[in-house]
Structure formats: structure tokens, C-alpha cells
């Protein structure tokens, strides 16, 4: 006989005691319990669980076909309006509606950007103190234009000398990220 056998025998007696007495627990019927259950059943029957409402799949074949059709329609309209062609043309033509400059200011070469500040002969001569004959002669030789109306070709250099902002310095730089300081 192993040492655990008496303990197991005792345990089997515990089990037998509970198995026998488990069926002898006194119980009386309480109608309130049934009433509560009947109310729950009525509520469940009156409010059946919601059936899943069929919803068309937004990524279905019909949606793709109609989406492509709408895209093609939009592209056709866009082409008809000439917006695509205009988009590839120089910006100077497109921007003339919004920015108006005087004829004196527009006396610069054709490639000058009207959005940027233009140095006229008058301002340039005032700032640099150069003689008007000398400047206009250099510019007229290169551009084959009347010397009295043309602006100097080297406006950038001249404006740098005068301490004015140049076209390069007026370019929009990406905003610097704010440094968060943790104390």
C-alpha cells in the first residue's frame, strides 16, 4: 500500500458524500423567476435581432465602370476647354490677367518675370550712379533695341551691387521645421 492510498480513500468518501447529497438540496418553485423569463422572451420576440441590411458594395464592378466613365467624361471636357494645352504654355501669358505693369516697367526683355520686382533704368541709375549713355549702349548692342528704352541686361549684378534683392534671393524657400525645445 502506498502512502497516498489512505488519502485517496478519504477523498473518494468526500466525493461520494457530495454526489449523494447534491440531489437533496431543497428547492421550491418561484413563479417570479418564470415571470422574469417570460418577460425576457416577450422582449426578444417583440424586438427580433436586426437582420443585416443588404448594402451594395462600393467597390463593385458597376462602381468601377461608372467611375471610369466619369473620368473619361471629365478628361474630354478638360481637353475641349483647352486647359491641358494652356497648362504647358509659358506662365507669362497666363499671368497677364492678374498682374498689370506699366509700359515703363515692362521695358525689360521678354523673359523677365513680371511677378518679380523689375529694376527700371531710372531706379537703377539712381541706385548705382552710372551714366545712362554707357549702360544703354551696352544693352542696345546685345538686344538690338533703341538705347533710350531698354533696361540694362545685367540687372541682377547691378541690383546686387546696389544691395537690392535679386531674383534668386526672392525664390520661395521651404519652410524650416520648428524645433521643439524640451526644457
Amino acid at each position, binding site marked *: 500500500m502506498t502512502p497516498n492510498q489512505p488519502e485517496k480513500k*478519504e*477523498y473518494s*468518501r*468526500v*466525493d461520494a*458524500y*457530495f*454526489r449523494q*447529497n*447534491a*440531489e*437533496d*438540496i431543497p*428547492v421550491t*418553485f*418561484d413563479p417570479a*423567476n*418564470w415571470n*422574469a*423569463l*417570460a418577460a*425576457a*422572451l416577450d422582449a*426578444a*420576440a417583440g424586438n427580433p435581432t436586426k437582420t443585416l441590411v443588404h448594402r451594395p458594395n462600393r467597390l463593385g464592378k458597376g462602381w468601377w465602370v461608372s467611375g471610369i466613365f466619369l473620368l473619361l467624361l471629365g478628361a474630354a471636357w478638360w481637353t475641349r476647354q483647352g486647359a491641358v494645352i494652356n497648362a504647358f504654355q509659358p506662365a507669362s501669358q497666363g499671368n497677364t490677367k492678374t498682374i498689370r505693369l506699366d509700359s515703363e516697367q515692362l521695358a525689360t526683355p521678354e523673359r523677365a518675370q513680371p511677378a518679380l520686382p523689375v529694376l527700371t533704368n531710372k531706379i537703377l541709375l539712381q541706385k548705382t550712379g552710372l551714366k545712362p549713355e554707357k549702360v544703354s549702349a551696352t544693352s542696345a548692342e546685345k538686344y538690338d533695341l533703341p538705347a533710350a528704352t531698354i533696361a540694362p541686361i545685367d540687372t541682377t549684378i547691378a541690383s546686387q551691387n546696389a544691395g537690392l534683392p535679386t531674383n534668386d534671393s526672392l525664390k520661395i524657400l521651404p519652410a524650416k521645421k520648428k524645433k521643439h525645445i524640451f526644457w
Partner: protein
Amino acid sequence: MTAIPESILEGCRKKERRAQEQLYRHCYAPFLRLCLRYAECPADAADILNKAFFNILTKFDQFREEGNVLGWMKRIVIHAAVDYVRANRRFRYHSPMEVAADLPGASTADATLLENDLLALLRELPFTSSAVFNLFVVEGYSHREVGELLGISEANSKWHLHHARKLLQHKLQQTAAL
């Protein structure tokens, strides 16, 4: 438990309230006893029973004819009781026997009555140990099944059974019930 008449079963399949009440009354006593062994108090036992019967009566048409209807119902009641144990096993801090004995007006006779009560003995056990003892000894589940039901390992189930038996044996020897 006696067999359930076919007329009651047929009425329950048609969801007739009268037949459902008859079934409830027929199975009330044995299933409430089962619930009382797992529950903390009679009110909780009635609650477990009603939850189980709600599932039984609403899913009665899902019962397959070849099986034993009483076994199917009992399984649902046990599962409801196990759900209760799993939800409440962390909240048993005081055993009713200790509380009753510590009351100022509690006499020795009252304490003896409580100790002799089988339910009081079961309620003195830790929740999980009590459930393992009931499932293994009274219901006849294996340790693997008990572990799956209660969400514990098989070895843990064995330990809980040993712990429950040891405590019950000690209590029964004290009361000289054995």
C-alpha cells in the same frame, strides 16, 4: 429527472408560451440545484437558470432530434454556470460561513447548521476550486474538459481538485459528517 413529454417538446418547437412554461417547471428543480452549487447565492442561481433557459427556449429549433434533449439542456445550464464562475471568480473575498460565524448574534447552532449544509461547504471553497470540484466530481467531466471550460490548464485543474478535496475533507471531519 423524468423524461419530458413529447407534447411539451413539440410546443416548445412552435415557441408556444404554455409549453415553454411547462418545460421550465419540469426542469426547474434539478437545474436550479445544479446552479446553486456554482452560484454565490440563490438569487445568482436563479439568474443563471433564467439565462440558460432563455438560450434553451430561443434555440430550441436548433436541437437535433437524434440527441438527448435533457443532456442538451443540461449542457447549456452548465455552460451558463461556468460563464458565471468565469465572470465572478475574482470577487469572492469572504466565505459566507465565516461571515455568518463572525456576526455578533450568531449562535453556535446557526454555525453548525451552516457547516452541515452542503452548499455552505462548497461556497467556502475558492470559486475556481469549487467549480472544478463540481465539474469533475458531480458532473463527471475530465480534467481536460474542465480546463477548457474554465480556461485553465489540465494541471491547474488537478491542483484545484486536490485543493478542494483537502479543504472539504478537513471541514467534514470537523463536523463529523463522514
